[in-house]
C-alpha cells in the first residue's frame, strides 16, 4: 500500500524526471496552490516555468473540527505548472497516475469539462476535472488569464488533491485513516490541528481585529506597489485574501459586503501582476534565455506566437507614465 508521503515522493520523482523544479511550499497562508507566487506570478509573461510543489491550503470555511471524514480546514495540494504547456501534457499526467499505482486499464479515467475561475485573482482557464471511476482526482486547467492579463504562452496547471487521491489509493473512508508513514496515521499528525484551527476560525477569531488587519494589509500592499516592490506587495495581497477567508468563515461579511471585499483583493492582485510583469521586463525576462521546456513543445505553424504579445504591453504604473509624459 502506498503511504501518503510515498505518494508525494512518487509524484515529485515523476515531475522532476520531466524537468520540473521541485519547489517548496510557499510559507504564507493560501487557499490553494494557485495562489502561491510560484503559480500566480510565474504564469504571467513570456518566460518558461516548470515547477512541482506541495502546497498546504487553508480553507477556514471548510473547517469541521476534525469530525468530517472528507472536509478539512487545511488540506494538501500537489501543484504542477508547465509553461508553456507541453503538447503531450495529458499523457505526462496519465503517466504520473500510473506512477502512483493507477492502472488506466483497471480504472475509468476521464477528462470531464470543468472551467476554472478565481474572482479574487482575476484569473480563469479551461480544462477538466479528471475522474478516476467517477471521482475527481485532479483539476486540470489551461490558464487563459491571470490578474487580468492574458497568459501567453499558456500554462497547464495540474492540481492533485493529495488527501482524496490517497484515501482512494489506500481504500480508506476517512481522511484521518490515511497512513502517512507506516504505522502513523493522518489522525496522529493533523487531527489536533483540525480541531484547533476550526475552533479558531469558526468561533474564536476576532472579527474586528481581522477587519483592521485586512485594511492595513491592503494599504501595505498598495504602498509596496508604489515602491515598485511587487513581490512583498503580493505577500500582503495574499494576507488580505486569507484574512477575508477568515472573516467569511466567521460569518462576519454580509452578502453585499462580500462582493466588495473580493473586488478589493482582486484589484490588488491585479496591480501585483502588473508590477511583477514590469519587474520581469526590466530584468529582460531572464528565463527566456534558457531553453527550459518540459515534454513535447508544439511547432508554430499558423497564428502569431503569443510571446510577441508581451512586446506590445505596457506595465508601467500610472504615476510613472504621467511623470514620463510630463518630462517628455
Amino acid at each position: 500500500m502506498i503511504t501518503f508521503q510515498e505518494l508525494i515522493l512518487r509524484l515529485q520523482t515523476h515531475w522532476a524526471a520531466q524537468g520540473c523544479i521541485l519547489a517548496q511550499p510557499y510559507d504564507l497562508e493560501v487557499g490553494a496552490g494557485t495562489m502561491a507566487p510560484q503559480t500566480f506570478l510565474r504564469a504571467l509573461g513570456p518566460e518558461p516555468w516548470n515547477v512541482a510543489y506541495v502546497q498546504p491550503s487553508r480553507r477556514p470555511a471548510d473547517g469541521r473540527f476534525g469530525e468530517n471524514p472528507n472536509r478539512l480546514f487545511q488540506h494538501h495540494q500537489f501543484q504542477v505548472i508547465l509553461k508553456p504547456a507541453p503538447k503531450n501534457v495529458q499523457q505526462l499526467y496519465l503517466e504520473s497516475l500510473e506512477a502512483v499505482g493507477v492502472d488506466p486499464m483497471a480504472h475509468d479515467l476521464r477528462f470531464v469539462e470543468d472551467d476554472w475561475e478565481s474572482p479574487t485573482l482575476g484569473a480563469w482557464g479551461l480544462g477538466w476535472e479528471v475522474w478516476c471511476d467517477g471521482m475527481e482526482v485532479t483539476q486540470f486547467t489551461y490558464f487563459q488569464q491571470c490578474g487580468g492579463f492574458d497568459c501567453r504562452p499558456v500554462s497547464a496547471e495540474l492540481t492533485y488533491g493529495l488527501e482524496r487521491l490517497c484515501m482512494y489509493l489506500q481504500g480508506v473512508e476517512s481522511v484521518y485513516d490515511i497512513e502517512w508513514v507506516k504505522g502513523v496515521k493522518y489522525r496522529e499528525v493533523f487531527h489536533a490541528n483540525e480541531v484547533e484551527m476550526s475552533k479558531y476560525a469558526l468561533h474564536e477569531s476576532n472579527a474586528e481585529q481581522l477587519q483592521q488587519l485586512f485594511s492595513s494589509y491592503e494599504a501595505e500592499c498598495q504602498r509596496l506597489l508604489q515602491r515598485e516592490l511587487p513581490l512583498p506587495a503580493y505577500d500582503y495581497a495574499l494576507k488580505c485574501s486569507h484574512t477575508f477567508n477568515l472573516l467569511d468563515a466567521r460569518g462576519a461579511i454580509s452578502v453585499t459586503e462580500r462582493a466588495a471585499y473580493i473586488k478589493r483583493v482582486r484589484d490588488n492582485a491585479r496591480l501585483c501582476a502588473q508590477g511583477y510583469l514590469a519587474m520581469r521586463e526590466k530584468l529582460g525576462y531572464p528565463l527566456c534565455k534558457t531553453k527550459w521546456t518540459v515534454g513535447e513543445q508544439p511547432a508554430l505553424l499558423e497564428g502569431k506566437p503569443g510571446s510577441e504579445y508581451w512586446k506590445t504591453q505596457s506595465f508601467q504604473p500610472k504615476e510613472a507614465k504621467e511623470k514620463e509624459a510630463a518630462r517628455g
Partner: protein
Amino acid sequence: MADLLLELGSEELPASFLGPALDDLEKAFKAGCEAARLTHGPIARYGTPRRLALLVTQVADGTPDLQKEMNGPSVKAAFDAEGKPTQAATKFAAGHGLTVDQLVKVTTPKGEYLAARVQEKGKRALEILPAVLHATVHGINFKKSMRWGDVDLSYARPLHWIVALLGDEVVPVVFADVKSGRQTRGHRFLTKGPIDLARPGEYLAKLRAAKVEPDIAERKAQVKALVAKAAERAGGKLLEDEALVDQVTNLVELPCPVVGTFEARHLDLPPEVLIQEMKSHQRYFSVVGADGKLLPRFIAVSNTPVKDEAFSVKGYERVLRSRLSDGRFFFDEDRRLRLEERLPKLERVVWQGALGSYREKQVRMGALAKGLHAQLKSPAKLEHVLRAVELSKADLVTSMVGEFPELQGVMGREYARHDKEPEEVALAIAEHYLPRGASDGVPTRDEGALVGLAERFDTIAGIFGIGKGPSGAADPFALRRACLAVIRVTLERGYRYSLREQVSGALALLEPKLAAIKRKAGEPAVLDQVLDFFRGRLKALWSEAHRADVVEAVLTAGFDDLVAAHQRLTAISARVKQPEFEPLAATIKRVGNIVAKQAKDVARGAVDPSKLNDAAEKALAQAVAGAQGEVQGLLGKGAYAQALDRLTQLKPQVDAFFDQVMVMAEDKALRENRVRLLMQVSGLFETLADFSAISA
C-alpha cells in the same frame, strides 16, 4: 467523384459542444463549396469527446469553366461627348484585365451598361478544398474556446490532429500548430499509436476496430440499450432520462455500463435529492423497482471496459457515498431551522436590483394572490394561499438548494412537511413553479396555481417596468416562459379574471419601485407593453393549432378574459372549416364595412321602430331584438358555439335587408336608423371576433 473526410482530433471536448460544433462545421463546409461551385453529395457527421468529423460523399472532381458577366459603368457615364471612353470605363476594363473595346453593352432595367465577360477557369477539387477546409475549420464558434502553447488561435481544447482526405490524397490544411494528414487515433487507452487511413471509406470500420463508436446516434442507441439492460441486471428498471443519455453519450467513445449500489438507509432522503445527487455531479442513472420507487442501485457509464468491474465499481460507490452523506448533512442541517425562521434572510437576497429583495417580492405576491383568490372565488383557504406565498421562496436560502438549484420548490415542500405546515401549503410551494417547461403539467390545486400566477404577474410587470422586457432573441428574465405559464395555468384551470386588472394591480404594487425609473419619450405605457406582449404570446401559442387569421380575429375582439377568448377561438375555429361559414363571413364583413364607414357620422344608439317602413328591415329589427337577449345569455354562459349558431340564424334577414333595403336613403333620419340597426348586428358579432380579419 470521390469521398472526403475531415476529422479534427482534440483533447476532450465538453459534451454539450459536439452538436453545435458539427452544425457549424457542416454549415461552413457547405457555404465554402457553394462559393467555390464545388458540388457534393450527402454529408455524414461524426463526433466523440476527442473528435469532430464530416464524411462528405460524391465530391465532384472539380468545377467547370464559368462565363461571368460583371456590370460596370452605364454607357452614358462610360463615354464622353466625343464618344471617347471616360476614366470610369478604362479603369473598369483594366480591373478585369481587358481594354474598353473588349467590353460589351448590356441592357438592364436601369438602362444600358458596359459589362465585362470573364471566363473563370474551372479548378480541380484538390485545388479548391484547402481553402474550403481552412474556412470550415475556422468556422466553428465554440461557446467557450481557449488558446494553447504559444499560438494565438483558439479551439475548445487543444487540437492534436487533422485528417483531411479526398479519396486517397491528403488535402493540406493547417490550424494553429497542426498539419493535416491521414492518421487518426483510436480509444485513448485501448488502442496504441496512430491509425493510417488509406481513404475516407475506411473511417467507420477502422475506428470501430479501434474501440471508438464515432456515430453519435449509434452510440446513443448503445448507451440506451446498455443502461436499460444494466438496470435489469440491478434488479429493476431504468428511470428514463433522455437529457442524461445525451450527455453521457458525448462523454464516452465506447460506452461500458457499470452497476453500483448505495446504502439503503439513504432511501429516506427525498427521491428528487437522490436522483439529483446521482445525476448532476456524477452522471449516474437511477434505477426504480416495479412500484416506481427508487432502488439503492445506480448505473454509471464508463469509457473503458475495465479489467475487473467489481474493483472499479468501488470507486463509483465511494464517490456517491460521500455525496450522499453530504446530501444527508444538508438535509438534516436545513431541517434544524423552520422555513419561516429563514424569512429574515430573504430580506438580504436580491431578486432584481431595482425591484428589491425576495422578501419585498413576496409581500407584493401576497397582495396579488389575495386579489386573485377573491376574484376567482377559490374554494382554497385564503390562509393556505398566503402561507404558501410567504414560504414559497424560503428554500432558496437552504444549503440543499444552494447545492442543487434545480431542487428549489421540491425542497421547500419537503421542509414544509417537516415543519408540519398544512399539506396544501407544502404542495403549493413545490407546484407554484409549474409548469417549468412544455412537458410539465400545471399545478393540481388552486393554492399552487394562485401563488404561481401572483409571482409571474409581479415578475412580468416588474421587468417590463424597468425596461428589461424581451427584445429579439434576448429574454434574460425568461418572461416568455413566464407568460406561457400564466396562459397555461389560466386556461387549464379555467380561471376567469381580467388580465388588464391583474397587470395594473401588479404595476400599482410595484409603483414605489418603478416611480424612479425614467421612461423613454414616446414609449407606450408599461401596462400596454405587457398586454401587447401577452397578445404576441397568445398569437404564437394559438397559431400552432389554429389558423393564424382566426386567432388574430379572436384576439382583436379582446383577450382580457383568457378563458373566454380561447373558447371563442375554439368555437369559431370549428365553424371556419364548415362550408356555410364563408357566406356568413361575407355577410358579416359587408355589415362591418358599412358600419366602419358610417361610424364617424352616426352615433350608436337605439333603433327607432317608428322609422322602420320596409318589411325586410322590420323583420331584421325583430330578429335582432329576438337574438340579442338570447345571445347575451349564451355569451354569459360561455356557450360561444351556440351563440355563433344563434347569430348565424340572422343571416337570411341580413341578406334580405341588403337585397331589399337601401341603407343610404335620402332621408337622414331613415338612413341613420338603418345604420344603427346594422350597428346592432355588427355589435353582436364583434363580441366574438373581428370577422374582417378572417380571410375567405
